């Protein structure tokens, strides 16, 4: 496609958060590509999606694909894309493409955005929409050979009881029945045609072959072999399996095999009511449950048009920033585990983590599964003495430990040798792969959702966005340390400004009414941009509930980072992404 439009002058770019304006721009080059426009989204013709995406990417600088998901409507499927510009920031625009119910097909965006690879595979896996032109369209969370598409509305999981909670049998109807007896297994489990469990063999696993010229491997005559790292391996941070093709000791390609911890979080979310989802978000990235709560709650509050009181906002920020500090110190510790500094740095960091988790426990009732935020406020106010303890931590301990950790670890020559110029992810690749958080900033992209699209009250605080230079492991590591300092800065300001007063807007209610609509809400989690795409049809349960898991999408760039480095580096590179499998597999 030839687009001969000159690039837009920078001052006109700010208006591109409005779909109407973007639609006008698209119409100038592709007159019949836009089917319809609403204040929320653009509906694009499927046949011209790729051209539109290319135009948006090249001419309007929408260089970042936040999120790809799909919605199952009774008469059609809808694939939803959220795009932002790294330079402009602001809220993402939403593109939608409709696909027929029978044999749904949509062109793949992988030629424009590398980040579409994993996300489209997820959509294909969960919803059965084929992406034409996708280089490797296979299941990603379920196994190859699984029958059915779990996120379609007609799919019923094993132990299915009812379409929506609350289940009718629970109140005034019957007695307790154990889960195994509630729904016989064979009722709703489908097998492929002619399936025989005893003689079943999984399809042969192939690996993409990369030509040897791309690599400057040794002159030794080596064969490419496929080795399997994980899923049960202490260095993979959970049940992550890496199908690795190596040439000698050099990594040729890595394919993360996911889904060992898959529990169909999104389907559970659609069965739940809005309120019931909050404790489930704790279990996504279990290191950062407070931040997950916050991201989900602000998304639904956007739909409900609800604003929490000041004190609640401040407590939310304090909790989220403490979480960030805890998550980063644990990430650094585990990262050194991968390097071979066996547990000592981790244990040093865990001391402060322990104190912060004790504070979380005192406030919310649980150390890790906090379930602390509610729509329009918090579950309860913080206990007496909580803020004094946080103040003491923030003034005395956290800065000291951050400095000590840096002095302790960063000068170490072994660390420098292993981390510098290893696992390099260049700036344009980091953006193209839709990486987020410290991985993105490590590659030198000054992008933080807290600044680009400020949520909660982050626009009131003074803080910097640390960035790396070249995007190697060292940069990601240093970005994390710098972010811990920024968190302390935010915490100091928040503790100074925190007002008294209510912690809840309106009365506490378990029957949440969410008006019709759809929303993509996001927050800067320690691991990256955690997004929720929610479609509400006005009923007590979300019609569609999608989680944009940062660690999942960051893993998509692993192959790019690890190519050409040694197997031992692969472990460290993977550690520097800081994956948490609870979030990756959902």
């Amino acid at each position: 496609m030839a687009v001969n439009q000159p690039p837009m002058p920078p001052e006109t770019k700010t208006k591109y958060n409005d779909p109407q304006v973007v639609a006008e721009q698209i119409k100038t080059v592709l007159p019949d590509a836009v089917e319809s426009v609403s204040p929320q989204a653009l509906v694009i013709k499927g046949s011209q999606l790729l051209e539109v995406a290319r135009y948006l990417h090249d001419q309007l600088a929408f260089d970042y694909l936040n999120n790809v998901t799909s919605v199952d409507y009774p008469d059609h499927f809808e694939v939803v894309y959220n795009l932002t510009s790294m330079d402009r920031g602001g809220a993402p625009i939403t593109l939608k493409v409709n696909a027929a119910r029978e044999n749904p097909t949509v062109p793949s965006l992988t030629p424009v955005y590398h980040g579409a690879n994993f996300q489209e595979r997820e959509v294909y896996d969960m919803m059965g929409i084929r992406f034409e032109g996708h280089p490797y369209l296979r299941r990603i969370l379920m196994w190859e050979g699984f029958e059915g598409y779990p996120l379609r509305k007609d799919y019923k999981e094993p132990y299915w009881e009812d379409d929506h909670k609350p289940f009718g049998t629970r109140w005034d109807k019957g007695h307790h029945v154990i889960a195994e007896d509630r729904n016989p297994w064979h009722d709703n489990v489908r097998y492929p045609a002619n399936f025989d469990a005893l003689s079943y063999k999984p399809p042969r696993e192939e690996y993409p072959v990369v030509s040897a010229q791309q690599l400057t491997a040794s002159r030794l005559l080596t064969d490419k072999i496929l080795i399997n790292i994980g899923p049960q391996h202490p260095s993979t941070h959970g049940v992550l399996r890496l199908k690795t093709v190596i040439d000698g000791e050099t990594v040729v390609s890595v394919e993360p095999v996911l889904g060992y911890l898959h529990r169909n979080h999104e389907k559970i979310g659609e069965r739940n009511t809005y309120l019931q989802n909050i404790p489930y978000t704790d279990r996504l990235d279990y290191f950062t449950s407070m931040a997950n709560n916050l991201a989900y709650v602000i998304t639904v509050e956007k739909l409900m048009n609800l604003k929490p009181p000041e004190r609640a906002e401040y407590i939310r920020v304090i909790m989220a920033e403490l979480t960030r500090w805890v998550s980063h110190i644990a990430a650094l510790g585990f990262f050194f585990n991968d390097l071979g500094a066996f547990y000592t740095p981790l244990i040093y960091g865990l001391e402060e983590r322990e104190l912060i988790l004790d504070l979380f426990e005192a406030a919310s009732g649980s150390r890790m599964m906090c379930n602390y935020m509610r729509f329009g406020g918090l579950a309860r106010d913080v206990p007496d003495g909580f803020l004094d303890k946080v103040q003491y931590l923030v003034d005395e301990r956290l800065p000291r430990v951050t400095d000590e950790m840096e002095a302790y670890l960063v000068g170490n020559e072994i660390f420098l040798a292993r981390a510098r110029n290893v696992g390099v992810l260049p700036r344009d690749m980091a953006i193209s792969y839709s990486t987020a958080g410290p991985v993105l900033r490590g590659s030198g992209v000054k992008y933080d959702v807290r600044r680009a699209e400020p949520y909660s009250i982050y626009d009131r605080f003074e803080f910097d966005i640390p960035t790396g230079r070249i995007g190697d492991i060292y940069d990601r590591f240093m970005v994390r340390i710098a972010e811990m300092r920024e968190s302390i800065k935010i915490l100091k300001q928040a503790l100074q400004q925190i007002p008294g007063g209510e912690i809840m807007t309106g009365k506490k209610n378990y029957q949440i009414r969410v008006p019709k609509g759809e929303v993509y809400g996001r927050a800067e989690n320690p691991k990256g941009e955690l997004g929720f795409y929610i479609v509400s049809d006005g009923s007590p349960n979300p019609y569609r509930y999608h989680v944009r898991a940062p660690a999942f999408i960051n893993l998509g760039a692993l192959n790019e980072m690890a190519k050409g480095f040694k197997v031992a580096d692969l472990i460290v590179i993977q550690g520097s992404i800081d994956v948490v499998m609870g979030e990756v597999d959902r």
Partner: protein
Amino acid sequence: MAFGLGMLNGLRYTMSRIIKTYIGDLRHLGRPYDPKEFARRQSVKGDGIITVQYPEEKLPVPENFRFVPFLVYEPKLDENGKPLIDPATGKEVVGYERCTACGICAKVCPPQCIWIVRGSTPDGKPKPQPAEFYIDIDVCMNCGYCAEFCPFDAIKMDHNYELADYERHVGHIHDIKRLMKSTTYYAQIHPQDWAREEADRKAKEAAKAKKQTTT
């Protein structure tokens, strides 16, 4: 900089940690498990967290700690206003159950682990009391919604986290008998909540009494 200096610099920190632990041990010599000292070391002002010898020792849990709900009942009082104790079981005699079988806890429960059957009077009319109340604690995710949204303060979160059992089909299905705990126990584990709720209740009752006298 010569190779290795950075490493040595880092190891200085490790060394100082080692020395600090010995200094700490000397400071706590002879009283490592003194409760006051113990609490200080576990606090934000402590230096180095000490290992707790569970199950011989336990850390105190904060009041908001939540683990598996229980039902609250008001004990029957004797003439002195003290709760009557059943000599057979050693438990306080049930005065009345706070639960009215409204079913909000069962509806709000995210994993749907609460089953309630409403009670009925001998002539078949429904009465506001549960006939049966089950919580499957294997399914319970300890979110605390039931306690948060109960309008009668009848279901609360417990502090007892030692619920391991040899089997799950009987021992992990808590029925109404096992779930019932008296307000004395509740006041003991949730002193602040209890004081606040009692004050609210008294204020409400006073307002009600005032209304009745004026009308």
